[in-house]
């Protein structure tokens, strides 16, 4: 009878064990390899470009990474709760467009004479609404995240075009100026925002039961269900949280660029790289908030170093693409070995 599964194809258990040490060594190599590669890049740049390791430059990189960093943290949450399978797992392709629309909403409202509080509220609301639409499409309509968020991305960038007429909308408010300023040491305030947000997100994702449950849902839904966790609500929550990150980075981008500009979609690739790359910085090879911060900085330092060395900035995108290939193939191979 088909209800019985005793003779269903299955792994023979004693085989697992012999694979384990090899998997561990590869995992360790990948993990430490990534850290070593990170430091190697820092060392090479600091030797060839003396200015590279100065406090101001590091602050600048942090500041410049703030927008993509916050977006990548949002994406990381979706990766955690949706599972890190790139095709069928969690992904939010609408994040960059989300940032663009949230920024446009902010800038438009200030143009209309609204204050910072209203504009901030509206941006965050915009972001969370986009997250909600994603959540409904993925969790309740059951569309694969890759497709659902791709569709939402198109809708959102369409809305942005309608709102801005494909032009730059300048914005200047007290809050924006405060965000884009630097402190007494020449370190951008945005750098502190990134650090602060990372600490906040880390506390929730890595140190609360909620975070642990997000991992459970993403990695092994059946186990999460058996533990009585509300799968749909957790996954929907992750998409909404990611949407909020999109709204937040919209505000940061308005302050950084003194207005809303077109072309937010170009952020998508770096953000996906950053979030996927993040998992090689964790012991368990899973996406983590701190890992994402590290990889955001790695991507930031790469671009910054290339600039200081006068290497064509067009190469940066190629290097990023290469990084995705390496990370995804390495983790896929590892997972296959463990499966």
């Amino acid at each position, binding site marked *: 009878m088909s209800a019985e599964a005793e003779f*269903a*194809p299955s792994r*023979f258990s004693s085989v697992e064990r012999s694979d384990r040490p090899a998997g*561990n060594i590869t995992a360790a190599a990948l993990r430490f390899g990534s850290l070593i590669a990170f430091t190697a890049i820092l060392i090479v740049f600091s030797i060839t470009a003396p200015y590279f390791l100065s406090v101001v430059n590091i602050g600048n990189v942090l500041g410049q990474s703030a927008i993509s960093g916050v977006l990548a943290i949002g994406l990381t949450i979706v990766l955690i709760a949706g599972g890190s399978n790139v095709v069928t797992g969690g992904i939010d392709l609408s994040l960059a467009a989300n940032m663009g629309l949230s920024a446009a909403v902010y800038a438009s409202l200030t143009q209309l004479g609204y204050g910072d509080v209203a504009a901030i509220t509206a941006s965050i609301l915009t972001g969370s609404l986009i997250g909600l639409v994603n959540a409904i499409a993925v969790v309740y309509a059951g569309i694969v995240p890759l497709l659902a968020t791709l569709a939402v991305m198109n809708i959102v960038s369409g809305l942005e075009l309608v709102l801005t007429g494909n032009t730059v909308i300048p914005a200047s408010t007290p809050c924006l100026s405060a965000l884009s300023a630097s402190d007494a040491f020449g370190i951008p305030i945005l750098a502190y925002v990134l650090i602060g947000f990372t600490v906040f997100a880390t506390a929730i994702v890595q140190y609360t039961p909620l975070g*642990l449950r997000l991992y459970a849902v993403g*990695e092994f839904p*059946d186990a999460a269900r058996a*533990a*009585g966790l509300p799968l749909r609500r957790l996954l929907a929550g992750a998409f909404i949280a990611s949407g909020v990150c999109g709204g937040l980075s919209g505000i940061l981008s308005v302050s950084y660029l003194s207005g809303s500009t077109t072309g937010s979609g170009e952020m998508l690739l770096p953000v996906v790289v950053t979030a996927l790359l993040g998992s090689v910085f964790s012991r368990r090879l899973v996406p983590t908030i701190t890992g994402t911060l590290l990889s955001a900085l790695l991507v930031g330092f790469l671009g910054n170093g290339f600039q200081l060395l006068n290497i064509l900035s067009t190469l940066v995108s190629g290097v990023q693409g290469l990084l995705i290939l390496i990370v995804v193939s390495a983790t896929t191979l590892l997972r296959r070995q463990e499966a």
Partner: protein
Amino acid sequence: MTVIPLKQPSTVQQDIIRLEGIVKGFGSAQALAGASLVVRRGTIHGLVGQNGAGKSTLIKLLAGLHQPDSGRIEIEGQTFDRLTPHLVEELGIHFIHQDRLLIPTFTVGEALFLGREPRIPGTPFLDRRLMQRRAADLLNDYFGVLLPNTALISDLSTAEKQIVQITRALLNQPKVLVFDEPTAALVRREADILFRLIRRLRDEGVTIIYISHYLNEIEDLCDHVTVLRSGQDVASLPIAETSAAAIARLMVERDIQDMFPKPAVALGDELLKIEKLSAPGKYEDVSFTLRRGEVLGLTGLLGSGAKELVRTLFGLEKPASGRIDIGGRAVHFSNPTQATSSKVALVPEDRRRHGVALDLSVKENTSLSSLDRFTRFGFLDRKSEQRDVDALIARLQVKASGRDALLRTLSGGNQQKVAIAKWLSRHSEVYLLDEPTVGVDIGSKVEIYTLIGELAARGAGALVLSSDLPELIGISDRILVFFRGRIVREFKSSETTADKVLAESTGSPEGQRHVS
């Protein structure tokens, strides 16, 4: 726990679980046809039955995952119309599933406490240290196992994972624990640890329901046993009044006899010869021959290696050592394409996923893998394709509205006939049939048996892997029994009985128990 018969409070029932007259059907197939399971408090209750007897369905019903069509459910003296997983948990019934539901990248502590994580008092944060300490204490207390604090689930052995899962269930302070084939993946020593624990839990007052194919385990461990057959409980008795052999007989007795029309076929040349084939952890040192006109039965429990062997013969897995000869020539398959070109055919167990394409027509399914036979100068010769397909449909008595009917619209038995027809169309010679009659109605079963007999009569050889032993005995010439990776016994089908074969495949041959 001491039981004082007369002074027992009226609220405490002797029988903690009473499932009575449970009927449950899936589509046209009836999984349970009035099955009952009555479990006495504080005992270890064995539940046995062959594949398809309804064990899994009954347990899923108890878990609240299926709802019965009719029947009575009484737990702790309370009658329920329907059970939900949540309600079952509240009643204190917990399950140790066959597939280990643990998250590979979690630490042991995280895996144990997922869903009821301790927090650092006064904060919203996880108390990881407490989780680790309590995890270590619990594992040490129940199993005497010391695991490093930082161990991840993926680092653990199968037995250790199972220990973690049992501990997870114990955290709920269960009243009833249901073990579903817990030893299928354990070695003897690990199984012994598990048995000690199960006895200790019983002595502490936990009621155990124990499902296993290994009848000697049932005999050693259980206080009481219920035997299911064809969706009904055929016996429920104290273990003291029975034996593994008697249980085996109860499991396989059949009402319908003579449904296996195996024609007498003179055996021809050697078609397939396997010598000392080994794949560590799957099967070891397997040797046998298959001759033209022969139907050779293979049987064994999950993990016995029989299934893996069949997969190897079709190029889906690679052996580590040994030799496969087909028609006198050594072959090395690294993929199914090579196997099919050596005229090997596989009719897989899961036909809906691997055997047929549900959204293609009967014609397409039949001719798809042999299209080159109907191709003239690069184009498809539709006429000859249709002629061939029509002839096959008629010969196999496929009941379909026509050659253009979609497979989806056919019954299970007719889908299976098409899966076989596909290979007939290719003129295959070595047929590997994996559970060919699973989920097939009786009428179609007989037609499939006839078909297998015809294959043999036409000079092909068939290797039939089946856990339906009366079926296997009826249609085959010889039967090879696999147990833990090896062929432990060869039977002549005409000289054996289902309970003898079952006893061998469950590791409890008569007069020689405790085989490890």
